[in-house]
């Protein structure tokens, strides 16, 4: 990857981190409505996958969707305003954190239903296949969501119809408070997917380059008509399941250890030759990200709530 590409990818990861770390603080003020699920620690997965996609490709996402949104190119200001419930939000305040969407960049929406995305993603893949526009779809699901019938059905359908889709299972070790090794009967999510009749690989989800390479192969295969692939990418979430989770299922020391040793941003930096991108350049990106998020928060806080009349609009295109 050339320097521009490296910095581009890092910038997205850095933005996600800045966004989520800041949301963690903002949430503590009590000004953010509803439930918030943060993506910090998993940045390399969303970005590693989406760096292989362009605006005509689509992704389906989860309740933990901010990272997917940023990776797919959603506007950070629009996201922040949405999370605060403001009119300027990407969904004009009607969706919130769990429903951020931007179809213009191929983001089919965060999804508050676990297992919601895989069927939608194969639908986008069907469109691409039928319209022959070369598009590809990616579905993000968690380890927990990988046990949903919807996810399994989507996999089988994708194999049967040889759809251009990549099933990305983000294994962060937990579905809410329950460990993957408990909830996934086989602890081998990729192996289970492979048995559906598609290539399936496991990658280190803290390593952008590993994810990027696996996704590149999968996306190329899909674009070439080679059908679906599953990528099981393992990483950790640095915060609780949602903001407010006391995280009793793991110890603070364990979380500190994960943050110290499994940080996708640090790992990214460590893998890039200093002569290509300097520490200072990375730091600058991080500063930019924080500044961007600062600005987004300030604007989101200052922005208007949607007017009450909006309650009744946009239920139907026509009625």
């Amino acid at each position: 990857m050339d320097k521009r590409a490296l910095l581009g990818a890092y910038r997205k990861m850095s933005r996600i981190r800045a966004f989520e770390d800041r949301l963690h603080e903002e949430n503590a003020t009590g000004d953010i409505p509803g439930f918030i699920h943060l993506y910090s620690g998993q940045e390399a997965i969303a970005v590693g996958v989406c760096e292989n996609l362009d605006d005509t490709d689509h992704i389906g996402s989860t309740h933990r969707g901010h990272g997917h949104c940023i990776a797919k190119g959603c506007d950070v200001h629009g996201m922040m305003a949405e999370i605060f419930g403001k009119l300027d939000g990407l969904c004009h305040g009607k969706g919130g954190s769990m429903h951020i969407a931007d179809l213009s960049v191929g983001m089919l929406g965060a999804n508050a239903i676990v297992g919601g995305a895989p069927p939608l993603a194969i639908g986008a893949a069907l469109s691409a296949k039928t319209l022959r526009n070369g598009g590809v779809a990616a579905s993000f699901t968690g380890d927990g969501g990988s046990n949903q019938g919807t996810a399994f059905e989507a996999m089988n359908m994708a194999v049967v119809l040889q759809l251009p889709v990549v099933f990305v299972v983000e294994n962060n070790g937990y579905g809410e408070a329950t460990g993957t090794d408990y909830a996934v009967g086989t602890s081998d999510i990729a192996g289970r997917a492979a048995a559906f009749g598609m290539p399936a690989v496991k990658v280190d989800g803290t390593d952008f380059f590993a994810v990027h390479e696996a996704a590149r192969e999968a996306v190329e295969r899909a674009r070439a008509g080679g059908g679906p692939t599953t990528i099981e990418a393992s990483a950790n979430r640095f915060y609780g399941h949602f903001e407010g989770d006391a995280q009793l299922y793991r110890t603070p020391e364990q979380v500190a250890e994960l943050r110290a040793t499994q940080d996708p941003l640090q790992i990214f930096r460590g893998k890039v030759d200093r002569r290509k991108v300097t520490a200072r350049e990375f730091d600058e990106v991080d500063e930019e990200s924080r500044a961007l998020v600062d600005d987004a928060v300030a604007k989101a806080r200052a922005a208007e709530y949607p007017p009450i009349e909006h309650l009744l609009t946009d239920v139907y295109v026509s009625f």
Partner: protein
Amino acid sequence: MTTSKKTYREAVKEALAQEMARDETVVQIGEDLRGGQAGTNPKLEEEKIEAFGGVLGVTKGLWSEFGSERVIDTPITESAIIGMAAGAALTGLRPVAELMFMDFFGVCYDALYNQAAKFRYMFGGKARTPMVVRGMIGAGFSAAAQHSQSPYHVFASVPGLKVVAPSNAHDAKGLLIQAIREDDPVVFCEHKTLYDTKAEVPDEPYSIPLGVANYTRQGTDVTVIALSAMVGAANDAADRLAAEGISVEVVDPRTVSPLDEEGILESAAATGRVVVVDESAARCGFGHDVVSLIATRAFDSLRAPVELVTPPHTPVPFSPKLEKAWLPDSARIEAAIRKLVAS
């Protein structure tokens, strides 16, 4: 415009075929819409014959005309079917998904009610989800408790969904063409006992707007509001009563959502005596919705309480005599009309 006698089944198929011909983005998705894939009869492929063409033959001919890319047979996997249709509708196709029996919505309802129906609103008006879910409703075939239901009331309660339930071949074609052209998700309910009923149906494509009730018969004494297969039953009752000089108006809303409130209220106000007939449910059904509409908005015109005719609060029984007793019929409608006239 030439017309010809067509069955409801043929009308549905013609609507599908004509919309597919008109619009390349219209695709059919479902189980055995074609049938025979990976079967052992090589002739089907060679001679372009559908092994099934839909479980009751409704889609027969579509695959041979439009091919496998547009008539997509799937595994038995309704969550993936409806979810895939929703995702495809968001991204450029105009899918028509067949649920076979509407009773199966229980295995895939999330994709319809939490996803497809809500995208536009949740995304702040930035999405369109033009899809149709077709499926059979209705009792009368001894298909028992899991294959005889009419859950359109459930769908109609969901903001974002439109719900259509045609009572005859003519409406079936025009409403289905319109449903496919809608930019919102539409649930299209085909009553299985109507498939073989015939009507004069235009050969050319035409559409009937959603939300416009049809006065299938005008009258002055009593209004009957009836949908789908109940329209025929209501008209049978009205025929019999006409001989006695009782003049019955039979209003078919045709679409459950949007509902032609004005069309219903106008007739209710004119006659002041209303029977609502509904197959959906004895509790929290479409019938209660209509009674509530009339009772809250035409109260002053009512000369007697509205009569609501529904099945009892029981699953659909298998044994034919019980099923017959379960299903509202023209005798019960007649009795309700007589009661009102006497009041």
